């Protein structure tokens, strides 16, 4: 099965949710199992019936690999295992295994308890699902079964994010998940070795963006926060407990330190302290700088950022508050928003995507009045800012990754179709690689040339290498390996012909020819032999021609002169069938001389 097949069930020419089916070497692998945050109906989960219209899925899917804890990559996992009934192996890194269940539970609560949705997974589902997960460490080679091997590489997108290398036989694929090629405030840059996969499946969220904009966004963010507190305003930053929140905290913490600011910064308690604890314990997954200094000072022990108390909402004066949830759809962040929105001095900064229907989404769309269920109307006079801080590779980063791992084919997913098209052309032009961009439900078939591993007798290999090394170097001459391939049971081994016959249990049948020609050449026959030797040597410069006991030999060709001193000489030329060319050439040579 030399073809690799890929079908996105999500992330095919879109950024909604990632779920990609990969088939190689007879194995089916699900890459991520994400949920679409923009839908409230059955469209939020991937269409698993695509895999197998009926019957249990487990026999169709050999394993599921989750790249990182973002819900658009793992949000459908409990549904897939507990509702759809997949019971095979699931792999993710340790931090992902630690953090994903918290986000899943958070999301479940919002969906079921706040929005009253049904057909969702339960709290117990999340727990049961996580029990089935096998945690992996970076670079560890994991054998899923006797043929399927996977290996995680650092992706730098969020804590614990990984790219996965997947191999069956001599075919391999790299799936990047989301990744970031430049180190940020708390994570390092993605890294991969020259693993030369047959296919690289890369995200392409920022396919047309060129870097640097992130530093600018950070400056912009700090400037806006600073301006707001300078005029005595309050800044609300709705966040999810894990991920961007920690990065923004580090950003503010270092800025506060540098600018020597005294205005209080609060982090709404609950999940957050716990969340920061995850970061403290998985510090080996953060960047060099944080790892190096963590004994003296753990970057996630914030000095300027204090726990928030609800009573502070009405405190006078400037302050900055991080509060959950991130989309202002419920909870503390919404409560604070209602209080602060009517004041034009205040500001809300939305650092991420908001689902349609949430207060966050309305606010971002410029709503000036928001009505709530209890007919309460809140006027929005505060300034509203949107700032994306997601850490994805840009076009340059994607090209860099291609350069690092030297794939034979590239596939772009998790991006917008138009932007992908641009990058696809760039990849084709710069690397002359085939580049695929399948839509959801569309299958791409990638032909791969399959190298076949065979055994070679060490003796044969050494003989060739000795012969090669003895010759003067010549880059034009190709090195030649000659032997007999023995195919027996399931093994294939190249040997020299005699070894091969022994191995196969058969006898060679040697064929030899001897031709006689007469030659008028008075004098002792040894003289004649000497003459013939010189003639042959002159014509066969690179050959090993030698004279022993009056016979001239080249490979299996033997030339022997007989006859008395003054008589006509008989010259016998004999050779093995395998030296037919050489033997008949020498015979012809001597015949012309004899005439």
């Amino acid at each position: 099965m030399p073809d690799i097949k890929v079908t996105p069930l999500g992330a095919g020419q879109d950024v909604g949710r990632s779920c990609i089916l990969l088939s190689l070497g007879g194995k089916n692998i699900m890459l991520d199992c994400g949920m679409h945050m923009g839908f409230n109906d059955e469209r939020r989960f991937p269409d698993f019936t695509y895999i197998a219209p009926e019957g249990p899925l487990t026999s169709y899917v050999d394993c599921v690999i989750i790249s990182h804890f973002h819900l658009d990559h793992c949000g459908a996992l409990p549904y897939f295992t507990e509702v759809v009934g997949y019971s095979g192996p699931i792999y993710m890194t340790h931090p992902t295994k630690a953090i994903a269940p918290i986000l899943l539970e958070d999301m479940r609560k919002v969906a079921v308890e706040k929005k009253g949705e049904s057909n969702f997974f339960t709290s117990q589902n999340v727990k049961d699902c996580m029990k089935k997960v096998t945690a992996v460490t970076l670079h560890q080679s994991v054998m899923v079964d006797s043929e399927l091997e996977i290996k995680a590489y650092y992706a730098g997108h969020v804590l614990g994010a990984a790219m996965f290398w997947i191999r069956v036989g001599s075919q391999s694929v790299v799936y990047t998940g989301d990744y970031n090629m430049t180190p940020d405030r708390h994570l390092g840059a993605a890294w991969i070795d020259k693993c030369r996969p047959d296919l690289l499946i890369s995200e392409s969220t920022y396919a047309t963006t060129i870097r640097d904009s992130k530093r600018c966004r950070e400056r912009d963010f700090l400037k806006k926060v600073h301006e707001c507190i300078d005029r005595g305003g309050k800044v609300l930053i709705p966040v999810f407990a894990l991920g961007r929140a920690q990065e923004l905290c580090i950003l503010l913490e270092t800025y506060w330190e540098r600018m020597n600011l005294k205005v209080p910064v609060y982090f709404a308690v609950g999940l957050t302290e716990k969340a920061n604890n995850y970061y403290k314990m998985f510090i080996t997954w953060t960047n060099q700088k944080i790892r190096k200094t963590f004994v003296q000072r753990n970057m996630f022990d914030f000095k300027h950022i204090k726990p928030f108390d609800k009573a502070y909402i009405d405190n006078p004066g400037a302050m900055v508050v991080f509060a959950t949830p991130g989309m202002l759809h419920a909870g503390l962040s919404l409560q604070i928003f209602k209080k602060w929105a009517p004041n034009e001095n205040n500001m809300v900064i939305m650092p991420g995507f908001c689902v349609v229907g949430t207060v966050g989404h309305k606010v971002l769309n410029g709503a000036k009045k928001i009505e709530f269920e209890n007919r309460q109307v809140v006027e929005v006079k505060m300034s509203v800012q949107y700032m994306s801080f997601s850490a994805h590779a840009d076009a340059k980063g994607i090209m860099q990754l291609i350069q690092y791992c030297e794939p034979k084919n590239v596939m772009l997913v998790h991006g917008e179709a138009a932007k992908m098209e641009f990058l696809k052309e760039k990849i084709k032009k710069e690397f002359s690689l085939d580049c695929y961009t399948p839509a959801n439900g569309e299958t791409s078939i990638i032909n791969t040339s399959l190298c076949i591993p065979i055994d070679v007798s060490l003796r044969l290999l050494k003989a060739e290498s000795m012969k090669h090394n003895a010759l003067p170097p010549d880059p034009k001459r190709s090195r030649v390996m000659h032997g007999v391939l023995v195919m027996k049971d399931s093994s294939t081994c190249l040997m020299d012909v005699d070894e091969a016959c022994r191995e196969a249990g058969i006898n060679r049948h040697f064929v030899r020819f001897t031709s006689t020609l007469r030659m008028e050449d008075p004098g002792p026959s040894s003289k004649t032999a000497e003459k013939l030797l010189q003639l042959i040597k002159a014509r066969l410069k690179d050959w090993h021609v030698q004279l022993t006991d009056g016979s001239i030999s080249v490979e299996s060709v033997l030339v022997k002169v007989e006859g008395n001193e003054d008589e006509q000489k008989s010259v016998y030329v004999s050779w093995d069938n395998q030296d037919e060319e050489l033997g008949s050439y020498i015979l012809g040579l001597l015949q012309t001389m004899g005439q």
Partner: protein
Amino acid sequence: MKLYCLSCDPNKPCYILRFKEITLMLDCGLSAHTVLNFLPLPLVPSARLNNLPGWMPRDIADAHLEGELKECCGRVFVDSAPEFFPPQPKIVDFSEVDVILISNYLCMLALPYITEGTGFSGVVYATEPTMQIGRLFLEELVHHIEQTPKATLASHWKEHLHVLPAPLSDSLKPRNWRHIYDMKAVNDSLAKIQMVGYNEKLDIYGALEVTAVSSGYCLGSSNWVINSHYEKIAYVSGSSTLTTHPKPMDQGALKNANVLILTGLTQTPTANPDSMLGELCMTVANTLRCGGSVLIPCYPSGVVYDLFECLSSHLDASGMTSIPMFFISPVADTSLAYSNILAEWLSTNKQNKVYLPEEPFPHAFLVRNGRLKHFKHIYTEGFSTDYKQPCVVFCGHPSLRFGDAVHFVELWGGNALNTIIFTEPDFPYLEALAPFQPLAMKAVHCPIDTSLNFTQANKLIRDLKPGTLVLPESYRQPPGTAPHRLDLIIETDRPLLSFKRDEVLTLPLKRKQTQVDMSPELAENLVPNEVRSGVALATLTAAIQVKDNKHTLKILEEPEKPSSRKKSRALEEALNKKPTNYTWGVLDIDEFIQKITQEGITDAKVEQVASGYIIHLPNEDTLIQVEDSSTHIFCEGDMLLRQKLRTILLQCLNKF
């Protein structure tokens, strides 16, 4: 394949393995036993040590020897900075070493001696915990010795070994002993380490694949599997099958190796670690109850974590919740911090805690609630205010020759209420105590060595079924401390080779095959001929490409058109042409005669002889000699006739 042994201590191994033209060093253990010959380095000047009487050999009048040797309770010590005996670059030059594999942080103390100033230019592989905690061990060692510099260094005693009393007189090559390296050497050598994960396949110059697998002995400890395409060598260093804090030992990966190199078995085969731990807890509780304090000399990481855990809960259960525990080491803070961020290297129990999220080790909690206090030194700010007796002090060095432990033995030694408990198995405890005698404090020996014992090792060998077992000679006889315990040896039905220091072993690996890749196009062109049921042969001529030690067979491109080339080259290529097939089996005479007759050769006469047949073709002046495995055609110079016969003959023979 050859194995060179550079270490005499199986628990501080250092071997060289030469295999497929690669030179691998297995561990760089440093035996620190030599330091026992030296006087302790006290943190504050010690009148007792200063006033020890000098010792001079009789009949020797070497003035330089004056003041080098001191006597304490019948033992003679060298009054100088302690020295170590690192592995010697005698049989192998360290600049030739391509790769160093480090199994655990206890097997790497000689690393700076090997990589610095020796021309070493290879890479060092170790897991992240091995490197991070190894750094702590190296730093602590340097720090301990550098903080108490000696004004004069003794060296003349080495010239008079034969007149010195034992054990000094038994010193092995003291002229090769070295002072401790400095921090620069430590940093430079650590910078050469490349971190690896468990089960991460490392490619060594395309020739070998090396993998670290969990050994269960300490944080990040590993055994190594070294693979070529056809051979597997398993190197077992410090390993444990007991359940403590590290990730359990991975035995599956070591199975069915052609060669198993086994080292690092327990140094205290007669002591059971579990009962020792129990005894330790009891002894501590008893001492504290009587108002005495307890000193536990230790390394900055390892079993000490388990001691914190067990001892604190034992003291809690005994109602001694207010007794402080002190952990004093220049690297105490780092050690405690690191232990709690290495979850991926811990036992499942400890690992699962980070999912809560809680620190995997309870010592984080003990530190937060003030139960365990850690300080860099005894003179660190805050220690004197927190210090109160009775208490339990954990500090280094277990040899009692340097570090804060020296201070506590001097301070508490005179009081019979106090106890010193030896848990680290690296040094004979009576020798460690020798320069402090006479002592009033109790000395209790509770060695806790979680390494494999002989029963466990013998079972392991039975399970792993290695082709050949290779081990230190000392494992084939009972230990010196228990000469009658015939059960304390390795017994196996596997072929066995043993080695000792400075020996070279040739390991029984005969490679016959290696693996290459064949391009699919070449494979498509193959014409296999079944010569027997299930056996097919195909003659093959291919281009071979060699890159990074990896071979690929591809289609041999036809040479360009002769016109564009030199004539001689074309001829050479034509003559060089390899046969496309080979003949085999027996010639069917009747078929052959029938075929040549069809081709107009009608005068064949077949004569049966002892070796087969002779076919005469009198008109053609030709004779064909046929045997079971050969046919020889003798003819005159008629080219056409010979080629006709050849074609027919080849038609009649089996080919592959």
